[in-house]
């Protein structure tokens, strides 16, 4: 096995309370001074890639991220987990990756170009969705553009000696197991929660990661190199119409006795 690509996304940290500024309309989600981290499903994808690399000596894991300059930090985390090198497609600071500017189609187009550019890629592992847009489209779109076999929501991945991948995937009613045959094209698999528990990048690995190469190339340059159209890439295919915070939960009332409870229920017409 030669090469595994893992596209990773820098998103608002899952524990952050997302705030919406109503005066900014659809651009209202506040990103300034907000803690960002690697998308949890992308983390799982990185972990899976490292595990496969460990099982297949000689495989190279490449972490790729499209976003502002801070994405280098996100790539460093992947490197500290064990990825070998990184590619950072750097966007201008005001270009938003949370569905407002860059959308799955643009990313998938870029990734398709990068897969071709890299050559001899056996597998592309992605998170099943990002926690900001929740689209879940980049993986399937990429597979379509590559005309490659795909499996989504992977809960378990096994690589066969013939280069095939047997994937157990999550469905609404349980799991189903499908086999992606070796086809000369890279397999595209998106990762779900149960696939693995990402390892902790501890100090020795963090130190090693500092020396691993990260290629930084601006979005404009990458687009040119791949022969894509910059406008095409930057013009979103979908328009966000409205963004709002969910309405606050109403406070409950405490009552002092069963009688009081019955009284209130009757008052509210919930009980005869």
């Amino acid at each position, binding site marked *: 096995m030669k090469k595994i690509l893992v596209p990773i996304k820098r998103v608002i940290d899952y524990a952050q309370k997302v705030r919406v500024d109503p005066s900014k309309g659809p651009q209202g989600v506040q990103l300034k001074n*907000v803690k960002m981290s690697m998308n949890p499903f992308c983390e799982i994808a990185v972990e899976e890639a490292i595990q496969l690399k460990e099982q297949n000596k000689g495989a190279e894991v490449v972490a790729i991220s499209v976003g502002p300059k801070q994405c280098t930090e996100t790539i460093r985390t992947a490197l500290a987990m064990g990825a070998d090198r990184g590619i950072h497609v750097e966007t201008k600071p005001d270009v938003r990756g949370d569905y407002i500017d860059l959308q799955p189609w643009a990313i998938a187009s870029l990734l398709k170009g990068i897969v071709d550019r890299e050559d001899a890629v056996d597998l592309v592992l992605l998170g099943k969705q990002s926690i900001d847009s929740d689209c879940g489209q980049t993986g399937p779109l990429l597979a379509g553009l590559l005309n490659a076999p795909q499996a989504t929501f992977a809960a378990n991945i096994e690589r066969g000696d013939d280069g095939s991948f047997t994937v157990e995937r999550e469905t609404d009613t349980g799991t189903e197991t499908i086999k992606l045959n070796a086809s000369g094209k890279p397999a595209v698999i998106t990762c779900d929660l149960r696939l693995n528990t990402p390892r902790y990048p501890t100090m020795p690995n963090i130190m090693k990661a500092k020396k691993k190469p990260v290629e930084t190339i601006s979005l404009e340059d990458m687009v040119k190199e791949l022969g894509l159209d910059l406008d095409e890439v930057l013009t979103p295919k979908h328009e966000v119409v409205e963004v709002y915070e969910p309405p606050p939960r109403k406070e409950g009332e405490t009552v002092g006795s069963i009688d*009081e409870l019955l009284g209130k229920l009757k008052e509210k017409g919930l009980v005869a």
Partner: protein
Amino acid sequence: MFLSFTPRLRLGIHCSNLLSKRCASNHSRNILLRGPTSQDVSYFRSVLARPGYSVLDGTANQDTKDEIDNRYNIDWTRHYQGSSDLVLRPQTTSEVSSILKYCHENYIGVTTQGGNTGLCGGATPISNEVVLSMEYMNRIYKLDEYSGVLTCDAGCILQSLHDYAEKNGYLFPLDIGSKGTCQIGGNVSTNAGGHHFFRFGGLHGTVVGMEVVLADGRVLRMNIDANDDDNNERTHQFQQSSASLRKDNTGYDLKQLFIGGEGTLGVVTKVAVACPALPTSKNVALLVCNCYKDVLQVLKTSKGQLGEILSAIELIDMNTMKFVQRYGSGIGDHLISELLASEVADNQPLFILVESQGCNQEADSSKMDAFLTSLYESSTIENGFLAQDSKHIEEIWGIRESCNPSVARAGYVHKFDVSIGIESYIEVADEVIDALKEANLPDLTVCVWGHVADGNAHINVISGQVENNAAKAEIIENIVYTAVMKRKGSISAEHGIGQSKRKYMSQVKDKTALELMSQMKNVFDPHFILNPGKYLP
């Protein structure tokens, strides 16, 4: 000094048959207090607005008695059990005032209780005192957007104050493991220290105002502005009835007496706490050192390289970490395994949690990175892990906050919370281990963790068996306290005195100080009804 019997019970033995109406009397005064009668209960029912809520009468039925026994009569460590038959849960300051006035006039003992998470039995009745629970006084009044002063009732659960402050862009300056249950009134009354004492200082500094009800029912307001009823009288045009100001130097700062007073001078009903701005960037790392000398180096380096953003440094020893792995809730298991993976079997590594808080993620991350790199390259740390996202931060703090509960599940815990010079921290633990061996006490594990930057060590001696051996407990206590006192330390850094350390007060406190404290008690609570049998010798 007259010290009547104080029935100290362990592990669930009831003693209500010993006292029908009398509680332990108090220190030097030969005052006899009594427990409540049915007439008293009727009186309380008449003055409380919602007696169905606010009066738990254990003599009425077995269910109520059971509830009182399970919730109010026993403490968190399960070492102390009282036999109260009456729990009062007032909703307003004026209700507290009516209750205390009556108890004062009738010499009825009162034990105030908040979240009941204390570790010294300070909130557990000695026998059948009335339990005054603050749980229904839990309103948050306001948070001043400019000064950051948060004003609330004493019964507010600490976590709710954190949540409220965070929503408004502020950080509540006190943070301890029990924050999901403990109440701010109890925190203030015990002068709780917590994880961020190092960064924000203690409650003596952050509490700017307070409302207290004295033993005779008088309401004392000190730089606080909050109304839960209409009973505040202003007799003079300029009389201070408001404000929760950050600074006010007009007279003796009486509120300081109630902070750490453990409910013996008055009942705290409201507090005003100055909150710092919510930091927007937080970094947490868990580091592994081979020996304490390296830990001291980490401490020094952190002050130099993290400086103003350093917000917490906590130490956890290997014995504790093993118990967390075995008995913890599972949080951080993977991380612990990974950090231990490269450890040689006999090693006794020390773990340090380092936290930084600031307002610029990029600047803080680069400081943290430089700090960790320099520690690793100089071999001051053998290994370490820097949290990459919130999940990791939760896991690392989860490990630290699991120390106390995990150790409690491992066996019978002889718990100590001591203050010593930072350089002697581990030395004391080692001395205790040696002394225990010499005293021929087998099957004991000594665990140490705590706020190392404050010199505050939580030393826990765990016995594999459940036991009830007072003699053994005494030997262990003597060993630990001797090691601490010979280094001029304190036998209670932050947990307080309560019941558990009362007997040491006359040994560790200056005689003049004790005399003055006793005189003060006389001034504030001349009938000695508040929290009898605790704190002062």
